[in-house]
């Protein structure tokens, strides 16, 4: 390793030694100054086309084949070619080793930025945030994806591509309702999952005996003894993880279809924490890269020119258009996250009186890195904003809260602004926008009519009067009915259990379950 003060590189060109040097220099700052704890890093250099590739299969290096990824690719390629969209500088995968993709077109400065951002910022966040610890299995994910890919390909060979595709389409439609929102008995262990899948398959094959087909059906025992309560308890109802419920109880699915549903469910679960930590995750990574880059510049390892180039990209990334700007499309997680991290740094180092009132625990504490690490580990977007969005930042962003009630003829009400009376309300409302329990529709499987026509009954409890989009809902329910093989009913109710709307969908003739 070169002594500090020695330039990491000159100009824009880089080679593999440069990358190694950059990585080592970033690591120094990351570990020594910021105290980061990261998975081992693996850096992969790819082309722009491969970057597009990676985009369209949700960023994963290996993924099963499905037409919707092809659609994504065509769509993204088209907007890229038209210049509507720049490519992300990086993609990083929550796995151990933590894989960061670097585009070959990037300049050396950009590679430094990306390594600092992804290989240290995101990497630390993945490894330490409680949601990721709880829900994802970084060691197992790549092997599991490999298994999923192989398994699905084998299913296609055995059962035909179309059948597999229909099952996957149906499972994808329900993907957002295939996660457990609250930690259950055990954490995910994908390696064991994969092993068990293999064993299940072997078991099926070993116990298969054609003779059993010829045994006459024995009359089922009277079900009258089974009370409704007991039955629902046995089925684990109500259940909000629809995919899980299907996998366990759908009466006519073939074993391999259950396995496909399981795969989609596991993947949905793996990505679940990412959706809940966008602001924090990007904020952390951006804060980390900013600290590392500034330090490297201070040490003289980056030239002023390189640093300016970095600052320009950095500024673009953390740009927050205002609400009346054409470019506005909600809060930019990079901007909000980075601003909050910096704000916390300020509060810890040089608090004002206001900050002491609001954040007695951290104001003036002095240990910026320690406080931040602790926050990075223990919060998700909703709780993070609810806890740490300061009045100073609300003022800086000039945030205001709008309440739009369609029944109100006067228009949209400005409910709170960035003033003494408004801080808490603005903060609470903003936090709520990031609350998954609030953002996703609350749909549960309520019951199955086992004595009758086996109709599956679901309920959507509406919040603030928002109902489901009818066209899409029918389509999703169609998929659900195809998997369930019997009628599916969805009831929308408001908070007082008043029924707002009912859907009933029957499975298609050529149902997924043959």
């Amino acid at each position: 390793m070169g002594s500090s003060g020695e330039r990491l590189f000159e100009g824009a060109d880089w080679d593999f030694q440069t990358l190694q040097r950059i990585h080592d220099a970033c690591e120094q700052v990351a570990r020594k100054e910021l105290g980061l704890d990261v998975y081992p890093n693996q850096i992969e250099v790819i082309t722009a086309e491969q970057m597009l590739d990676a985009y369209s299969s949700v960023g994963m290096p290996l993924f099963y084949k499905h037409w919707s990824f092809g659609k994504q690719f065509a769509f993204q390629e088209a907007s890229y070619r038209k210049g509507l969209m720049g490519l992300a500088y990086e993609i990083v995968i929550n796995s151990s080793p933590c894989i960061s993709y670097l585009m070959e077109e990037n300049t050396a400065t950009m590679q430094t930025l990306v390594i600092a951002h992804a290989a240290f910022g995101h990497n630390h966040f993945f490894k330490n945030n409680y949601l990721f610890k709880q829900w994802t299995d970084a060691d197992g994910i790549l092997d599991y994806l490999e298994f999923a890919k192989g398994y699905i390909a084998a299913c296609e060979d055995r059962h035909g591509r179309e059948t597999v595709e229909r099952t996957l389409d149906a499972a994808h439609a329900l993907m957002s309702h295939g996660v457990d929102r609250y930690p259950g008995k055990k954490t995910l262990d994908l390696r064991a999952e994969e092993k068990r899948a293999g064993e299940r398959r072997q078991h099926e094959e070993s116990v298969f005996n054609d003779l059993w087909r010829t045994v006459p059906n024995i009359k089922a025992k009277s079900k009258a003894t089974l009370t409704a309560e007991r039955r629902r308890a046995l089925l684990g109802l109500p259940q909000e993880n629809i995919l899980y419920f299907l996998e366990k109880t759908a009466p006519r699915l073939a074993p391999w279809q259950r396995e496909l549903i399981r795969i989609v469910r596991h993947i949905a679960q793996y990505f679940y924490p990412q959706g809940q930590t966008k602001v924090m995750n990007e904020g952390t990574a951006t804060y980390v890269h900013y600290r590392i880059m500034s330090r490297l510049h201070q040490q003289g390892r980056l030239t002023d020119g390189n640093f300016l180039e970095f600052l320009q990209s950095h500024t673009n990334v953390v740009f927050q258009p205002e609400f009346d700007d054409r470019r506005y499309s909600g809060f930019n997680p990079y901007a909000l996250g980075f601003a909050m991290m910096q704000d916390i740094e300020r509060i810890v180092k040089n608090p004002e009186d206001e900050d002491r009132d609001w954040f007695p625990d951290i104001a003036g504490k002095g240990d910026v890195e320690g406080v931040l690490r602790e926050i990075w580990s223990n919060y998700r977007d909703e709780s993070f904003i609810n806890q740490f969005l300061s009045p100073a930042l609300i003022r800086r962003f000039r945030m205001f809260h709008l309440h739009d009630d369609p029944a109100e003829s006067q228009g949209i009400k400005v409910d709170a602004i960035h003033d003494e009376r408004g801080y808490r309300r603005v903060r609470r409302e903003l936090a709520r926008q990031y609350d998954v329990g609030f953002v996703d529709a609350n749909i549960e499987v309520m019951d199955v009519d086992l004595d009758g026509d086996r109709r599956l009954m679901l309920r959507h409890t509406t919040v603030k009067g928002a109902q489901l989009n009818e066209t899409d809902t029918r389509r999703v329910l169609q998929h659900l009915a195809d998997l369930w093989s019997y009628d599916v009913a969805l009831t929308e109710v408001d908070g007082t259990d008043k029924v707002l709307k009912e859907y009933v969908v029957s499975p298609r003739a050529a149902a997924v379950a043959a």
Partner: protein
Amino acid sequence: MHIVDRRLNPGSKSLENRQRFLRRAKALVQGAVKKSSQDRDIKDVLEGGEVTIPLDGMDEPRFRREGGTRDMVLPGNKKFVEGDWLQRPNQSGAKGSGAGEGDSEDAFRFVLSREEFVDLFLDDLELPDLAKRKLAQTESEGIQRAGYATSGSPANISISRTVSRALARRVALRRPRKDEIEALEEELAACEDETRRAELLALLEALRAKAKRIPFIDPIDIRYRRFETVPKPVAQAVMFCLMDVSGSMSEHMKDLAKRFYMLLYVFLKRRYKHVEIVFIRHTDRAEEVDEDTFFHGPASGGTLVSSALVAMNDIVRTRFRPADWNIYAAQASDGDNMTSDSGLTGHLLTDKILPVCQFFAYLEVGEAANYTFDMPDSSLWTLYERLRNDGAPLSMRKVSERGEIFPVFQDLFKRRTTSQERV
């Protein structure tokens, strides 16, 4: 840390997914291809290119919520205070901009490769079988020069290339020239001074050693001529598009004709490496024009079919020797012709045009949903019918709907193969 260079194994993951997507979206893409080929020039059809398909044709539904009361926190407050009321965005205005945005989201364009495009184009028309048969008949392997290689058979050494590379190398490495050495040798022979002699001797020694180290011809200089086998088309083709543009030809009729020409072009392009197109339009006189003028240029006047045939005959005579060119012609007309022109037209066709043509199609175009075809045959149709009955290899069809173009095309080519056998 571990660095992996993934660029080396591009094995595009997206290719398979893209194909699956295309397969699934086939009907949609085919519609788009058809539509886009409508607005294009004949030659561009083969280029592949962008097509637009609706995104929701391939939708992946999710439970989505909408409506209800909404709360939002926004950045960038300029002047509002708590309790202000904001005008709801004008309903119609909002719709307008919403629709605009929706458009870009609901449909997307993507680029089809040339092969994908033509396949989809022809697949819809169910041409492939036909095309393949023709292709197999006419392609043969040929050998073509393809630059130079560093290895090869001694018979293929390119002396001039080798020598010039050797020269460049010798110059670059400063190999002492022969006359330089000779000059020194002469000087040495003439020199008396001992110290100078030793100096010269050493210099000479160094030069000779250098000349030995840098050979006159080095194995790395050697270049071989490289040859490549290429599919060699048996011949080239020219396609004559003859169209009556007199006032009675409507846009619809021209569109029908254009589609026929397009098919013929795509078909020929698959069969021949080199296809020329000649556009001749005529009223009572004929002229050769470019594609744009051909289909879109305004022209009007009487009708004299023979004028087009005369023009074609002239062009064939001057530019396309029948011995070298396969000549195809398609004539589109609504069938009106001066009765007095019949004799000349018949004579030109049977004596001049048909003998040199591989294929001559006459396409009588009519208005959509028009009952003209129940009416007596047009004068041109009657004439051509008579010629055909006399044994002239003429293909003729009536078309009034877009959808009929392909069947007619296929039909014509089927007839052609039988008549070929007969001839």
